[in-house]
């Protein structure tokens, strides 16, 4: 789960990670008032108006403006708010800006990159720092990996002072900035573990002209598995940033990812669901989605899943692929029948059932009167649905 920069910075402040003063704004009026307050508090006319969307590269896309005075801030806010902001992370259609963050200006001497992320090979959190701040870090990693410094954190010890110093001196920091960096990185590690992050990125981390270190950006991803112990996440969630169908699926405990193709898939198990997409593509089709109904899905969940697929206008055919272990084939059959009764079935449907209660499931589908093409294996099913969709096109 992603959150906005301004929300991330509120959490940063809770953990003592230094940031600039800033105020979120949802309207042009609020943005002007925020700018006026920041100017009055700081005595400097310079403020920054920043678009808040769940994607990086906002500056290059025109979503960040440095201005002087509250009136200019109002003008910038009017331009950014409501714009369709396109960055390298949003896709060509971009994302509509609905929130702003107005922040005090800073006299920046140098920009750095700092991130905390799980390193799966060592099974520890890795702290990564680089002098190439503000850059796309994946490019730095590809072209000059020696410019990325790394420390791995022992969970039994926590972030150690020497690790902070290694990174700080490695970045070329001097004087008081070394201690400030160590304290900041240590606070970020505490935040990562206590708030259940999967990624914590500060790009850029800046050194001010008076030699202080602070976080100019804040990107936080949370581990959705830990939602049960973070009741505040519900308030941080911005549903307008999420794919509506994926939100509906999540509420029904379904794992669903929308894709660009036209063959809807309903599968049990993540690995089988992924390889169902793969095999459709292998035989020349394009999957419309990833959908794992899970191991212990109820008839209601299957009905919901099938409804989600049926209501997508892009879907020109459906492939149900089930290897029932805990999942019983008759439960799948009941869900498919219930959903098609309610919504009708206007596209070809291929069903491959295997495993627990397979005979009962097949019998229910046979007796339902639905126009179902049955398949014996995954390959058989994939070939059949690809052929049927191609026929209906021609």
């Amino acid at each position, binding site marked *: 789960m992603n959150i906005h920069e301004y929300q991330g910075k509120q959490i940063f402040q809770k953990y003592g990670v230094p940031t600039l003063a800033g105020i979120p704004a949802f309207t042009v009026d609020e943005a002007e008032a925020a700018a006026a307050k920041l100017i009055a508090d700081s005595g400097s006319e310079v403020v920054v108006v920043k678009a808040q969307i769940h994607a990086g590269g906002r500056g290059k896309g025109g979503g960040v403006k440095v201005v002087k005075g509250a009136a200019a801030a109002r003008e910038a806010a009017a331009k950014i708010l409501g714009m369709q902001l396109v960055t390298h992370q949003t896709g060509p259609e971009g994302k509509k800006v609905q929130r702003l963050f107005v922040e005090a200006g800073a006299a920046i001497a140098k920009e750095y990159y700092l991130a905390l992320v799980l390193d799966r090979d060592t*099974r520890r959190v890795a702290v990564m720092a680089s002098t190439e701040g503000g850059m796309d870090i994946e490019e730095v990693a590809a072209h000059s990996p020696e410019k990325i410094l790394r420390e791995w954190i022992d969970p039994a010890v926590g972030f150690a002072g020497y690790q902070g110093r290694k990174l700080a001196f490695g970045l070329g920091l001097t004087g008081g900035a070394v201690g400030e960096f160590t304290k900041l990185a240590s606070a970020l590690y505490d935040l990562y573990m206590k708030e*259940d992050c999967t990624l914590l990125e500060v790009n850029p981390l800046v050194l001010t002209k008076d030699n202080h270190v602070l976080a100019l950006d804040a990107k936080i991803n949370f581990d959705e598995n830990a939602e049960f112990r973070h009741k505040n996440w519900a308030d941080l969630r911005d549903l307008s940033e999420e794919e509506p169908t994926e939100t509906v699926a999540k509420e029904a405990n379904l794992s669903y990812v929308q894709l660009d193709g036209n063959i809807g898939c309903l599968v049990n198990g*993540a*690995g089988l669901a992924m*390889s169902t*997409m793969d095999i459709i*593509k292998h035989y020349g089709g394009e999957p419309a989605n990833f959908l794992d109904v899970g191991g212990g899905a109820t008839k209601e969940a299957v009905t919901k899943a099938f409804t989600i697929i049926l209501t997508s206008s892009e879907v020109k055919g459906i492939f149900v692929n089930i290897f029932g272990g805990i999942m019983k084939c008759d439960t799948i059959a009941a869900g498919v029948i219930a959903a098609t009764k309610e919504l009708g079935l206007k596209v070809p449907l291929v069903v491959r059932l*295997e495993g627990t209660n397979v005979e009962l499931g097949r019998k229910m589908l046979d007796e339902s009167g639905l126009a179902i093409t049955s398949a014996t294996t995954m390959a058989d099913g994939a070939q059949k649905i690809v052929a049927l969709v191609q026929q209906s096109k021609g």
Partner: protein
Amino acid sequence: MSILVDKNTRVLFQGITGSAGSFHAKQCMAYGTQVVAGVTPGKGGEKFESSVPIFDTVASAVRDTGANASCIFVPPPFAADSILEAIDAGVELIIAITEGIPVTDMIKVRRVLDSQTRSRLVGPNCPGVITPGECKIGIMPGHIHTPGGPIGVVSRSGTLTYEAVGQLTALGIGQSSCVGIGGDPVNGTDFVDVLKMFNADGKTEGVIMIGEIGGGAEEAGAAYIKEHFKKPVVGFIAGTTAPPGKRMGHAGAIISGGKGTASAKIAAMKDAGIHMAATPSEMGSTMAALLKKS
């Protein structure tokens, strides 16, 4: 022979009175697994299915029944604690079925696992381990397996394991042992650990290895196979068509920062001499063809 579990394995279930735990404990007992104890804090002294004694702690269950394997069905908020309790009690094989354990919990569990040598963790978020005809610990459907066979299966995905096993059984090829290592980013036993055991197992003549996008466990497995593994291996990787940055169900199945792609894994596995099945429907037949040749 077999790996990890056999007819002498004495199993306890943590979370035996929960709905999933009790259902699968019964299924395992029906398969013939020796389920010797259950653990549910506060229900010590009661009996499960009027035969299996329930204990308040894993330590007391191990002391009184000699259990040497544990199967964990405890819900995500308490699952990491249950794994730590099993390690503390000295259980040799800990199989965590639970899906959805927070990663920060598993980072700490992994640190404890790495600081000792007695306990091995399989999972979490896995279907479990089965030696067909002898012992089933987990949620896999027992009836699709064929006992006494030559093929070992190791997989990050539950249903794809069933797919492979179902194909082998349909071709009349039995399985020595099947191990689901789970789909989470931080887990216990990995491909390399299981491959080492299959390499040493006299009964296993070939292995099906099923991976998916995300992480580098498949590449590590391939490197081990290239250097040390003597038996034919059939491989499959799920997620060739998965877009980067999207989590495909499993917490670990995600391509991030250009790492963990299916193409990189397939290339590493081919380079190690692994016979890659072109589609998941061909895992069994690819293995059958290899067995004929040898």
